[in-house]
């Protein structure tokens, strides 16, 4: 996760430099936020839309960012909320219950064209898609981004202990997924 320096935060607070500084924020965070969103929604077009909404919301409420939380934490929170809202809206639109959401995600994974063809990676995506939503978030942040539990705790508003337990359970379920496949 990129760490913006103090000077960038100061430029975000200066009316003369705020737009230019925010462009720098987009440049710095678009990639990590994109992958976080993509791992949740699976599809490139949807991820692109959610990423745009994330930055638009951040720009629209920049005065709410007071520097008490880290900029990255604030942006991740917005991105994750946008992703969860998108998935809930899609489930409602398709008339899919939370229990059937796994099948819907696996369908999205199979329909995804932006892949490198790695079969093992595809299986891992399906395994992650089989996890409950919160466990999936925790697994993605820890496994793919190697995010610290303390940072995850700030973003998700969950205790470090609960996050560790959640990640441990997620790993067990994924290992079980591969065992069942064998």
């Amino acid at each position: 996760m990129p760490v913006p320096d103090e000077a960038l935060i100061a430029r975000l607070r200066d009316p003369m430099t705020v737009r230019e500084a925010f462009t720098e924020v987009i440049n710095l965070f678009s990639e990590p936020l994109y992958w976080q969103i993509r791992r949740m929604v699976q599809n490139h077009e949807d991820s692109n839309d959610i990423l745009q909404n994330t930055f638009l919301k951040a720009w629209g409420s920049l005065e709410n960012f007071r520097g008490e939380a880290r900029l990255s934490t604030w942006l991740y929170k917005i991105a994750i909320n946008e992703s969860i809202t998108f998935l809930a809206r899609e489930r409602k639109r398709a008339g899919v219950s939370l229990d059937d959401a796994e099948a819907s995600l696996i369908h999205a994974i199979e329909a995804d064209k932006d892949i490198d063809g790695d079969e093992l990676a595809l299986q891992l995506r399906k395994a992650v898609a089989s996890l409950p939503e919160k466990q999936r978030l925790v697994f993605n942040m820890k496994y793919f981004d190697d995010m610290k539990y303390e940072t995850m705790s700030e973003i998700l508003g969950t205790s470090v202990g609960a996050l560790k337990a959640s990640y441990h359970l997620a790993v067990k379920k994924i290992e079980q997924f591969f065992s069942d496949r064998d």
Partner: protein
Amino acid sequence: MKQNTDILDKLRNTNGGMTVPEGYFAEFTRRMAASLPERPELEHPREQAALERAQRSLWQRVRPYAYMAAMFAGIWLMLQVFTLVSNPGRLSPMDSNPVMAEALGNDDFIVDYFINEAGLDQWDIIDEMDADGSLSELDFSGLSDPSEAWADDYEIYSSDVNE
């Protein structure tokens, strides 16, 4: 299980086989920066504040004064009501009420209610008139003998005088 752990180790810190179109992130930054809407309150806060002040309608400008005037009017009205309640003499005079004016203009009303009903006699009334000086203002010149006139009317005066 060991083999499965190896799979997880192998794919750690990857993008899970997902890709993006060539140059996507650079293009995204350019496109996103260009599509950011104007935020005058962020980018030009002083000018925006001045514009908002100038755009305030007449009502928005006079509203605090109107509220203050209404508040003072309310306090004044409340004081008037308290004063009237605590000092009924300041209420409207009885003769402005047509019913009361008619009653007071009727001699029988005075005799019936003030003299007969209240148990007053003529001496009480004469004493009262003497006390407030209104007796001396009465004109008895048309009468040949005032004392007889009183006696005729009330049958009391002569007996008292003769005693």
